């Protein structure tokens, strides 16, 4: 190692602070060779100069120009979380109160649901009675309308007669209503034309 100066790659090994079997002779050589010592010091000075090179700043408004081309997209789960957070009270006591209220409310809901499930048969019975009432009311209302339009004898004849007769009665009713509607429209149109 004493018969020649260090090669550039050997200088680089020393600059990188490499450790190992092959580096010890290089270090020993640098200690004894003024030329290689000077070269290593110059290389170290270059590294220092490189390490202290300044950063450059872009012009004012660079960030705004970048942001004008960036599409800020809020995913649905983040948006949902933001919305949910708006309902959380800001102060600690208010949060505790809201937590207690939520616990009581959910407890009541759970108890109500448990009771409803346990009393399912009563629920079915009440629903059945309610449905029967609705059906009876609807039947009575339909019967009143038919009596008003056809008269009691017409309704009796329709209920007591054959299916063909019922169809003829319904068809006649629809035809009369249709003609009434057409007549009223014609009347309204001629009235508008006259004006």
């Amino acid at each position, binding site marked *: 190692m004493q018969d020649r100066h260090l090669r*550039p*790659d050997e200088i*680089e090994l020393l*600059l990188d602070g490499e450790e190992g079997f092959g580096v010890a002779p290089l270090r020993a050589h640098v200690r004894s060779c003024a030329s290689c010592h000077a070269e290593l010091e*110059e*290389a170290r000075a*270059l*590294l220092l*100069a*490189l*390490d202290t*090179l*300044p*950063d*450059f*700043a*872009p*012009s004012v408004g*660079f*960030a705004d*120009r*970048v*942001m004008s*081309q*960036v*599409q*800020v*997209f*809020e*995913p649905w789960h*983040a*948006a949902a979380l933001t919305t949910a957070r708006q309902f959380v009270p800001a102060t600690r006591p208010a949060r505790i109160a809201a937590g207690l209220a939520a616990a009581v409310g959910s407890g009541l809901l759970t108890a109500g649901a448990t009771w409803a499930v346990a009393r399912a048969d009563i629920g079915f019975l009440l629903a059945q009675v309610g449905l029967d009432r609705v059906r009876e009311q609807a039947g009575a209302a339909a019967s009143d309308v038919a009596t008003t339009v056809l008269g009691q004898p017409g309704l009796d004849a329709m209920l007591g007669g054959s299916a063909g007769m019922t169809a003829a009665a319904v068809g006649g009713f629809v035809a009369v209503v249709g003609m009434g509607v057409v007549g009223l429209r014609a009347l309204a149109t001629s009235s508008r034309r006259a004006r």
Partner: protein
Amino acid sequence: MPNPDELATLPDADVVRLAQQGRELAFRELVRRYERPVFSLVFRMVRDRELAEDLSQDAFVKVLNHIDRYSPEFKFSSWLFKIANNVAIDHLRRRRIDTISMHGSPHASTASEIEASALNLEDEQESALDELESKELGSAIERAIARLRPEYRACIMLRHVEGRSYEEIAATLDLPLGTVKTYIHRARHELRKALEPLRE
């Protein structure tokens, strides 16, 4: 959502996560953190302020518009530098000015043609460098860096200006670790040679 002061104290990974949730302040914080390093890297690569701003802007826009694709196993800054470097290298490849100025025209068939084309472009480069010298890239070391091959320049910038490890540079530039070491060693050797006349 943290305010801008709180954002400034968060690590990159947390700021990126907030950006992925669509927080505009987080995007701005990432730009604020890296606008200078990215601009410096690109400026030293292309040596034109206006162009460097445009290319840096492209790099940021690419990264921030695809922030959802960022994988947290890598450093955000490495990803950003990788895109910025690719943008700069792509631009230089399109212009091909550096390659031609160092080695002569690729279309030259004889030694004299190569020399002639290299000299002509070297003159142009010198005038550009003279102009830069009077502005921001004033020092001899900046001039020497400007003459390095773009690959060497990127490695040197990342190693010494940004303080990245060899492994990080290899990941950032998609190069084998040995290649990165070789590039940096050769670049430093070339810089020493270029600065030698100043010492004498």
